[in-house]
């Protein structure tokens, strides 16, 4: 069993991270360059971080970037690591990690639904959660929810007051 501080030394030695932080007890975040992400995940998986809890995504619209967050957990260390990387918002493409974790296929489909990010190597990109979606992906920050609702649904009319 390793402690958080031991992990920091290990990650700094082997992974060439941009930043490593301890968020709180048993929770760490690692920022990696996008070219080094897959090898980084591979390394961590071999060191016991075998559980991919989920993949999430953040839209940093002002910096014109998407941040992908891979949430890993180790049953030996009892530590969560969030491995983060940033990709260009205009060329929203990344590589799949379904060869590392088969379940990633679904997480990537989910992110494709809600953020419109393509994952190279993952061919099955049918809609997973949404159906017949015909607007920009709804979790992007430039998606105007209120306008969409106004256009698609009608408000109930209470005696002429809307």
């Amino acid at each position, binding site marked *: 069993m390793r402690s958080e501080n031991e992990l920091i030394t290990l990650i700094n030695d082997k992974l060439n991270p941009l930043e490593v932080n301890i968020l709180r007890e048993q929770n760490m975040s690692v920022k990696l360059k996008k070219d080094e992400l897959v090898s980084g995940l591979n390394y961590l998986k071999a060191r016991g971080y075998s559980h991919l809890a989920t993949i999430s995504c953040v839209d940093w619209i002002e910096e014109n970037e998407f941040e992908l967050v891979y949430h890993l957990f180790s049953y030996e260390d009892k530590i969560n690591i969030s491995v983060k990387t940033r990709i260009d918002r205009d060329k929203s493409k990344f590589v799949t990690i379904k060869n590392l974790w088969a379940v990633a296929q679904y997480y990537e489909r989910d992110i494709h639904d809600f953020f419109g990010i393509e994952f190279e190597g993952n061919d099955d990109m049918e809609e997973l959660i949404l*159906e*017949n979606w015909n607007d920009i992906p709804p979790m992007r920050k430039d998606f105007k929810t209120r306008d969409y*609702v106004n256009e698609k649904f009608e408000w109930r009319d209470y005696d002429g007051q809307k």
Partner: protein
Amino acid sequence: MKEKYKSSKWQEVINWAQKRSLFMLHYCTGCGAIELPPTMTSRYDMSRFGIGPAATPRQADILLITGYLSTKTLKRVVYTYEQMQDPKFVMGFGSCTINGGMYWDSYNTIKQLDKYLPVDLYIAGCMPRPEAILEGFLDLKQKIEAGEAEGYKKYKEEYEYYKTNQEKVLGEVKRRQ
């Protein structure tokens, strides 16, 4: 046709019989489903009013929409409703079915159930307690006896209206041939 039925004594007998044997399809869409187990089981016991749960749409009379409906669920609800046999009654449950409730500005939940299905009765509240549900059931029974719960006939008469609304939010719908 409608007037003729209303005036006939035979229809009154049918209505009287109908209201005494109602089966509710247990199809739970939103958080309101949590109020149904106490309504069905011994604490509130809706079977004392002659209402019981049904497992499949083809055997059910009441479709209770319990809470918010995402557009994706709406499609399944429409399929379910169309599988049910006449006479069938739709009850909207909770403020989400009335005007969107707390999901009023959500991109994927519908705001007014009666645009997509013929609602016979709404139960307001967020959430309505089992007492309110039973009150709603009793009101529905009264409406059935008075011959006013005719949503399923309305659905046939205004089929195009409902299908157009459904198509607007679902993108595609199946129409009868």
